[in-house]
């Protein structure tokens, strides 16, 4: 974990070192002012050497200005390093998150990721920009004052240092006890974040069920717990920090008693003790600060642990060791060979085998929960089969570079997600260099142009997160246009027309038919009419491929397909039960 963090600090090690050297200079310059004022009192005020006044005052101001300039420089250097480091760390984590598999996002709450990427990262910033140089400065002052005191009177200094083991023991217990507390605080913060995040994301459901009270109850529980965790942690450090401060104060008692005894025994002069009293502050201050700094350090480590954990999450979708080198765009020939897929214990797909030729259209149909979407996820390698192989152009998907697969297989999901951007921005998401004209062509193909053109701002209309301002059918059509514009050789349409009215769907099907022969198209649908024209129809039931073939053949076979066909056809045969274009 430390090595991992160090790797981010590494590029800035010279800057850090430089800043630390500046810290030394600044601390040393800090000694100039007291000595100058000493000379001022001795020589000018008492010695009546008035010429010296202006020289000394000039030096005093000059030293202060230089010291302040240096201080500003090193403080800004630490800020600079911390900002760079946090930025790199954030981008590194973000990149890692970007490449994690769907399974990870299925089980991870957005709120948890948000708190990692915001406040846990901020702990790293605080560590570099504050804790490091404070620790260094204090250690420096401590070492400096101890060595000065040793030259004056080694015996008394040794006695003074007798108090430090107590401080060490307290510090040890502080470290030991407070760290788990801070981890709990961080974990609770994450929970709080998730509750709020879900509440915001699900605000429509909350309102529809009048569950504001219930939401407040849930929130209050986490909010209370967060406060309590913080107070609990503060009880722990609030116990040890006064102890450390107290032991540091003890140094003064030891000094007066021990020093007094030494003077009375003629082991030491009064003058030496005067110097001691002057410097004892420099000795105790770093010791007192140590408690606070240790506290901050532990807070940082608790966060670092969580960030490190995030950085260690491995995607189950591994890039191939020897990727098949790009031979231009894929042809889109797919083959499933004895594919099983399981989520843990739960077998979702079992023994799936079929072949799809380049340019064919495949229809997939089956009851809710039969594994259709899972099958589609395998095509774009969002998941790998548990058993068996999926081959694209005769090569196992796992041998292809992941990017290449994703670029070849365009996937329109059931759960439409639009970004809070303009409609045009959303359309060109899959092909950022596309022109407005191309976007409009795609929108026309997807039957989205008509409604977009009617919007006040047209293609410049900004849609909310998840496309909130649009109806379900409109969102689906925008998502479809986005896919058409990206123009991949393979298209997977996972129930993408469910919320579209029948008339529009009829048009969409014509668009799809045009693609026949040019692209391999997978269509998941509920209505047989949507897929009746497909070259191959796959019927999934409880994770098994129970029927496959062309529409004309399947309606001859007894089975699920024929039953559903007759049910849906029944609607057509009887004008009373006709489906309604709504």
């Amino acid at each position, binding site marked *: 974990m430390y090595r991992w963090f160090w790797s981010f600090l590494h590029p800035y090690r010279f800057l850090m070192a430089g800043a630390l050297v500046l810290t030394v200079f600044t601390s040393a310059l800090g000694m100039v002012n007291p000595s100058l004022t000493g000379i001022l009192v001795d020589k000018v*005020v008492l010695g009546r050497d008035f010429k010296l006044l202006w020289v000394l005052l000039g030096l005093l101001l000059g030293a202060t200005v230089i010291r302040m300039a240096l201080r500003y420089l090193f403080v800004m250097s630490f800020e600079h390093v911390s900002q760079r480091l946090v930025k790199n760390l954030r981008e590194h984590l973000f990149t890692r998150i970007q490449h994690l598999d769907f399974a990870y996002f299925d089980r991870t709450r957005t709120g948890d990721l948000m708190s990692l990427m915001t406040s846990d990262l901020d702990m790293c910033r605080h560590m570099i920009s504050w804790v490091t140089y404070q620790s260094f400065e204090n250690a420096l002052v401590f070492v400096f004052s101890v060595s000065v005191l040793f030259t004056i009177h080694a015996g008394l200094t040794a006695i003074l240092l007798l108090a430090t083991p107590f401080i060490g023991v307290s510090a040890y217990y502080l470290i030991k006890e407070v760290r788990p507390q801070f981890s709990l605080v961080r974990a609770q913060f994450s929970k709080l974040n998730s509750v709020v995040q879900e509440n915001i994301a699900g605000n429509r459901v909350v309102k529809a069920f009048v569950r504001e009270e219930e939401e407040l109850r849930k*929130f209050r529980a986490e909010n209370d717990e967060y406060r309590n965790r913080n107070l609990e942690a503060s009880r722990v450090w609030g116990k040890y920090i006064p102890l450390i401060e107290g032991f540091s104060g003890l140094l003064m008692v030891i000094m007066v008693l021990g020093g007094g005894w030494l003077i009375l025994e003629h082991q030491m002069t009064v003058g030496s003790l005067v110097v001691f009293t002057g410097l004892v502050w420099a000795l105790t201050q770093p010791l007192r600060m140590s408690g606070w700094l240790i506290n901050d350090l532990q807070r940082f480590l608790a966060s670092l642990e969580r960030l490190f954990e995030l950085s260690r999450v491995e995607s189950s979708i591994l890039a191939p060791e020897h990727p098949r080198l790009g031979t231009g765009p894929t042809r889109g020939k797919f083959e499933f060979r004895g594919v099983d897929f399981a989520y843990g214990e739960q077998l979702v797909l079992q023994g799936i085998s079929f072949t799809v030729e380049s340019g064919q259209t495949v229809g997939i149909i089956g009851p809710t929960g039969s594994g259709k*979407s899972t099958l589609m996820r395998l095509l774009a390698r969002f998941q790998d089969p548990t058993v068996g192989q999926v081959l694209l152009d005769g090569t196992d998907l796992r041998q292809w570079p992941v990017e290449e697969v994703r670029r070849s297989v365009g996937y329109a999901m059931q759960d439409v997600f639009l970004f809070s951007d303009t409609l045009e921005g959303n359309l060109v998401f899959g092909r950022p260099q596309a022109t407005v004209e191309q976007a409009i062509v795609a929108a026309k193909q997807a039957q989205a142009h008509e409604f977009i053109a009617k919007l006040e701002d047209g293609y410049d209309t900004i849609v909310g997160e998840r496309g909130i301002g649009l109806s379900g059918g409109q969102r689906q059509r925008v998502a479809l246009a986005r896919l058409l514009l990206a123009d991949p050789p393979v298209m997977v349409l996972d129930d993408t027309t469910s919320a579209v009215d029948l008339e529009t769907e009829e048009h969409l099907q014509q668009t799809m038919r045009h693609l026949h022969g040019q692209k391999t198209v997978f269509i998941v649908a509920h209505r047989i009419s949507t897929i009746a024209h497909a070259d191959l129809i796959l019927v999934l039931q409880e994770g098994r491929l129970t029927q496959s073939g062309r529409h004309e053949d399947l309606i001859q076979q007894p089975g699920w397909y024929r039953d559903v066909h007759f049910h849906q056809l029944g609607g057509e045969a009887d004008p009373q039960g006709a489906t309604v274009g709504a």
Partner: protein
Amino acid sequence: MEKPTRKGPLLARNKFDVDEELSEEFNIHAVRRILAYLGPYRGMVSFAVVLMIVASFMALLPPWLIQQALDVALPKGDVGYLVELSLAILVTVVVGAGALYFRIRVMNRIGQNVIHNLRGDIFARLQELPFSYFDSRPHGKILIRVVNYVNSLSDLLSNGLINLIADLFSLVFIVGFMLVLDLRLTLICLTVLPVLFAAILLMQRRQRMAFQDLSRKQSNLNAYLHESLSGIKITQSFAREAETESIFGRVGEAWRSSWMKAVGIMFATWPVIEILSVFGVCLVYVAVVDWFRDAISVGVIVAFVGYIWRFWAPINTIGQFYTSLVQSAAYLERIFETIDEPSAIVDAPGALEVAKVRGEVEFRSVDFSYDTGAPVLRALSFHVHPGQTIALVGATGAGKTTIVNLLSRFYSPSAGVLLLDGVPLDQFLLSSLRRHVGVMSQDNFLFSGTIADNIRYGKLEATDAEIEAAARAIHAHDFIEKLPEGYNTPVSERGLRLSMGQRQLISFARALLADPAILILDEATSSVDTETERLVQRGLAHLLDGRTSFVIAHRLSTIQNADRIFVIDEGKIVEEGKHRELLARGGAYSRLNGAGGR
């Protein structure tokens, strides 16, 4: 055809890279409001201040005690007095540590409680805000207000404020001591203050703007982070990771440079104060040596200069407090902006809690438009008897969803009135109204928890048996039972391992359990396969029985069996009647039907 325009400008803020607006002036009002949150803890705050004063006093004693030891006890060889003095120091140390112990406890208690209460208020407010609030800004920007901004206030409110009070006290003490020592020197020394104030004022404006800019950039960074995490599957499916990362890098860079600018100004304050304080010391020496000559004793000079050094320490902490106040003011403004956000839909005075409704619905010439958009509904009037099933049919964007949203008062009509059981809707308590109007929409958001928890959301006190009964009624029981952990299977926001259809069934069960008098099905069955829909249909038929219901669907036999079908076009009812009648009429309905009929 007229434009069924939806929210345009309303959504203008809804983008991660659009800076939010903040007022130009430093908002002292926000600061005063946050101080009000300290009100309930007045006693604790006073206690903490007393502790601070005790602690400062205890810290001032040892130098004097040591002086006594050096000047009195040691020269005399008075061992007894030496021991007494040591014991006295010990006492100051112990009392000081004790004061610190209690101060830490008290301050944390105050700080944590205040942010706890503030967060409670902002969250409670969020619950009252209408959809449009959530629709008009990225969710990440709302989230950060509730969580991160509030947190960043804790230190300001506990340590910052109490240190400020204690420092003001010591400042007064120090000036008092200085005045006692020498009036003229004090006045000379204080001449530096106006320069300091001028310098601070000069920097203050830039500093405030820098911090406001920082808070905007942070908001943007969070919004983008949130959005890209939510939309990650889309990013992956288009293999757009690289672009997303580069945008993220850009937004992060904007934040970074904004941060450096802000702290660059902030850290300049301290050198200014330090240099001015040294300048003050120089002035005193010049005065003593050059102007007053022998009029002032050496002892006074040494003591006076000693106090000047001390004088600037509190000034510096006060300056730091001011800096963090400026920094927090930007956050505070955001927080209070949310708390103050007016809810368009509030309970009218004297609104009633109604235990039971019959379900008679009437629209009387209702107009509606979204904010600035073109009208969506115009002079819409209809009357529905209790228990009737109404199908709303029409092209996308015709206004069907708007009609049902008005019914549960997610929006208020621009003109006209809606009545439930003959009573205008706004005379119902909102919570009471919504309890009677159940909505099943396409948006089947599930909360993280188990399946049972999600169904129970419809009726919190429901027993396991009731949950199972609801699940059975809409035919979700079979698939739930097949899951390894059955009803206790955990699901998440986006519905782990459940297909869209399955999630929809769960949200049906949730709505069924709520048992509302009026039920709205807004394209609720679109993701269910035909067979399941057929099963659900039976459950629905049983569910719709005895309830007033509005059904929006593209293909559902419920439409054919509906008591009345409203064909909506351009925000008006263009046809109305039963399925057969409308088909026979050969109007808009039969055209829609023909298009689908193949």
